[in-house]
């Protein structure tokens, strides 16, 4: 993209095309011979990683849209059925959902890199502003995508974020109605979010083309912040940058795969496994981790309109960065003061992210205000001031000179990488809720834990029995079909056993030719029926509270692990908060309400249930269900078995996920090593 190309293909067919549409020449000059500063470090690889992630999100998104139903009544179920029934649907969904987090993680590294090395400075202002536009589009896309599964967080996130616009004086309410397409968040909202969520990535791709175009006109910045002067300062893009980027991407894939295969729900909120309910708000609304710093800024301002303005300004201010920082030295490498303040700024952002996940009370509010001031002060006071008072160290005359003088800075970069990765893990603090007056359930040992975990077939079969004889009196399992009982990774029943099991149930079917509904014996293809014909009946039979569907209960219930456990959880793949919680609640009933605790009339005391007052009476007692395999018939055993079974109903393909994950990991490690050595060879001649 820099001047007319001297590219001349030898193939006559290609020559014919090239004379009429010089696209090959464009590619050649942009991605093959394009001169790349030879001193780029791995922070520059995130541009390639971002292109890769954008492609990945579009590809998986287009595919998920083939299976998804954008209707308020069907959206939640369609997502669950993608995960359960579509071939590799669980994989595609994890790729897309974790992909969003990876995308934001990479974009933050990319932005901070630009900030540190002064990539926004003359002549790259337009390049930088295009980047901010991409980031804004990403935020809108990510938000709307999060709404689509139509869980509790989706619904209430949509309500809260769209309500931000009601802060606008005079026309706010009308704008919010316009955004909703109704009197509240509902089906029209979901439909338009789906349409826009599909559209925006293509706009992003368009702006990315402009971003890359601007990059190739101005040329890449580099860690020393001096422009390339001679041929010796640069290397051709291919193979040097190409292979280096591919190595970077393959390392990044390891992190991405870790989430996809081993921690798919780590960065999500448990409440989003509860179907959207316009009548109940979750105790704390938290956005996804990548919006937390801005959410913290929003909440720090005690005025609605001012809060909204502050939040949007926090992003828009980035557009003015090239003029706020007028220092002539680009790279913070040669600016001792700017370097320190940069790291303070990074810490401020991470802390704001942490505060965004905390309940807005007490010390958190004060800290939020202080840090919000710090955030804006960095842009409005520190940078303009620094450019006036700071004396930078002398910059090298050329890139090649800088390379010759280069000491070992790798250690610092690795340390920084770890800190950046740490920021990602902070996101999981979203689980850290205000204390809700309950004990932390004890951790259990589960057969399905760890990278090779498999369900204990015996426990699954016993758990099914407990479900059928006890739980099924009040709770449904509407996302589980009888056929699932015979599928690999499940309780391991034969086709005949499944058919026999199904035929025990009466399924409502119809209408028949006469127009009547009728009952027939269940078939393998049927789903577990609910014990009540509808929600109203369920409420009436249970003192006003409809018993939740159990299919996803282990995913929808969890408890905060807090620091430092979440880091430990990430590395050990400890994802058992949900099952621990469910098993504990089943065993947490106590006859006698302890001194000093009062619970409402008609509820029962449970040690582990939030607030201790639960509407469900103690469902299990010793000896209630008979086991044929000699396992103890105790409440502890029942709880463990039925929880194992519920964990399976929440994710019938867990074993397939872990197995494939292991294979992918072996491959990726080998591939990354091969890439590393190839890269070394390619670069060997250039140092």
């Amino acid at each position: 993209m820099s001047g007319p190309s001297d590219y001349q293909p030898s193939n006559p067919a290609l020559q014919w095309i090239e004379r009429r549409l010089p696209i090959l020449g464009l590619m050649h000059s942009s991605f093959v011979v394009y001169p790349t500063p030879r001193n780029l470090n791995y922070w520059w690889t995130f541009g390639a990683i971002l292109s890769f992630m954008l492609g990945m999100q579009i590809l998986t998104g287009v595919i998920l849209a083939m299976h998804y139903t954008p209707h308020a009544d069907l959206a939640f179920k369609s997502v669950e059925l993608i995960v359960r029934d579509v071939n590799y649907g669980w994989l595609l969904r994890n790729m897309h959902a974790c992909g969003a987090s990876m995308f934001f993680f990479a974009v933050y590294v990319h932005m901070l890199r630009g900030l540190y090395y002064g990539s926004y400075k003359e002549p790259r202002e337009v390049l930088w502003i295009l980047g901010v536009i991409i980031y804004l589009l990403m935020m809108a896309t990510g938000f709307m995508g999060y709404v689509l599964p139509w869980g509790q967080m989706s619904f209430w996130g949509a309500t809260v974020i769209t309500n931000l616009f009601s802060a606008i004086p005079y026309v706010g309410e009308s704008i919010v109605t316009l955004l909703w397409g109704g009197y509240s968040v509902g089906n029209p909202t979901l439909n338009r979010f789906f349409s826009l969520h599909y559209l925006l990535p293509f706009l992003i791709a368009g702006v990315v083309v402009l971003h890359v175009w601007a990059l190739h006109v101005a040329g890449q910045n580099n860690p020393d912040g001096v422009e390339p002067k001679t041929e010796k300062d640069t290397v051709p893009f291919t193979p040097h940058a190409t292979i280096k980027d591919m190595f970077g991407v393959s390392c990044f894939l390891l992190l991405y795969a870790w989430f996809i295969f081993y921690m798919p729900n780590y960065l999500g909120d448990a409440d989003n496994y509860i179907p959207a309910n316009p009548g109940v708000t979750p105790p704390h609304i938290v956005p996804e981790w990548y919006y937390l710093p801005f959410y913290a800024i929003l909440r720090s301002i005690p005025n609605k309109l001012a809060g909204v303005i502050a939040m949007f300004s926090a992003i828009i201010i980035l557009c003015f960065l090239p003029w706020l920082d007028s220092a002539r030295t680009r790279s913070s490498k040669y600016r001792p003061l700017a370097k320190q303040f940069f790291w303070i700024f990074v810490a401020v952002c991470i802390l704001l992210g942490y505060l965004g996940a905390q309940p807005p009370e007490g010390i958190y509010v004060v800290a939020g205000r202080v840090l919000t001031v710090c955030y804006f002060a960095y842009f409005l006071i520190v940078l303009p001031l620094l450019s006036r008072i700071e004396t930078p160290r002398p910059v090298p005359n050329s890139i090649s000179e800088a390379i010759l003088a280069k000491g070992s800075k790798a250690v610092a970069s690795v340390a920084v990488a770890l800190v950046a990765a740490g920021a990602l893990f902070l996101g999981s603090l979203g689980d850290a809720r205000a204390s809700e007056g309950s004990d932390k359930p004890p951790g259990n040992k589960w057969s399905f834990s760890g990278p090779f975990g498999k369900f204990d077939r015996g426990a699954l079969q016993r758990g099914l029995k407990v479900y059928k004889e006890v739980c099924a009196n009040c709770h449904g399992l509407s996302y589980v079909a009888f056929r699932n009982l015979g599928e690999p990774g499940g309780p391991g029943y034969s086709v005949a056993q499944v058919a026999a099991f199904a035929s025990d149930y009466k399924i409502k079917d119809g209408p028949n030719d006469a127009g009547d509904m009728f009952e027939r014996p269940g078939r393998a293809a049927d789903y577990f029926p609910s014990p009540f014909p509808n929600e109203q009946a369920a409420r009436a039979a249970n003192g006003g509270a409809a018993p939740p569907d159990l299919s996803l209960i282990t995913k929808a219930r969890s408890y905060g692990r807090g620091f430092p456990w979440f880091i430990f959880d990430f590395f050990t793949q400890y994802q058992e908060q949900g099952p621990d919680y469910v098993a504990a609640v089943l065993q947490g009933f106590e006859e006698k309400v302890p001194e000093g605790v009062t619970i409402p009339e008609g509820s029962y005391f449970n040690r582990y249930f939030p607030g201790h007052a639960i509407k469900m009476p103690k469902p299990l007692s010793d000896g209630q269900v008979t086991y044929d395999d000699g396992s103890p018939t105790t409440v502890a055993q029942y709880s463990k078995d039925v929880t194992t079974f519920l964990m399976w109903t929440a994710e019938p393909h867990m074993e397939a996920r872990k197995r494939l994950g292991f294979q992918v990991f072996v491959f990726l490690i080998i591939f990354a090593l091969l890439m590393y050595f190839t890269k070394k060879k390619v670069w060997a001649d250039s140092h």
Partner: protein
Amino acid sequence: MTTASSADHPTRRDFLFVATGAAAAVGGAAALWPFISQMNPDASTIAAGAPIEVDLSPVAEGQDIKVFWRGKPIYISHRTKKQIDEARAVNVASLPDPQTDEARVKSGHEQWLVVIGICTHLGCIPIAHEGNYDGFFCPCHGSQYDSSGRIRQGPAPANLAVPPYQFVSDTKIQIG
């Protein structure tokens, strides 16, 4: 410059490049599979394609009913004596898609013709009891099928397909 040292081992370097390229190709091809496989029918669709049972007792002679199996219309005709005789009198060798009537029905249950009601031309649904052969007529491009569902006239190349089915009892069949 280290050009000399890397030129010393051209084979080792080539091996590295080839191995990396091959790993990338294998990984890429394997990664493609989930993206293709997701287009196949999902588990609930496959499960819904399980066999169905049809009660034949209400179907009078000369009448036919249409049931659906795997999203396809299945014609079940209770054939008259005349229709059976017509179907069996034809010289099989003269048919575009030669097949005897005996091969298209279950022995002992000659009066029942069970065919997938999808024209073998381009997929329209033929109308029963129409056309010149006491069988099926496809309105789309004029294909005519006889009382055994065999193609007799028009552009369709093959006889109406017989779905897999069996008699569970004298008055009940299971399709699939």
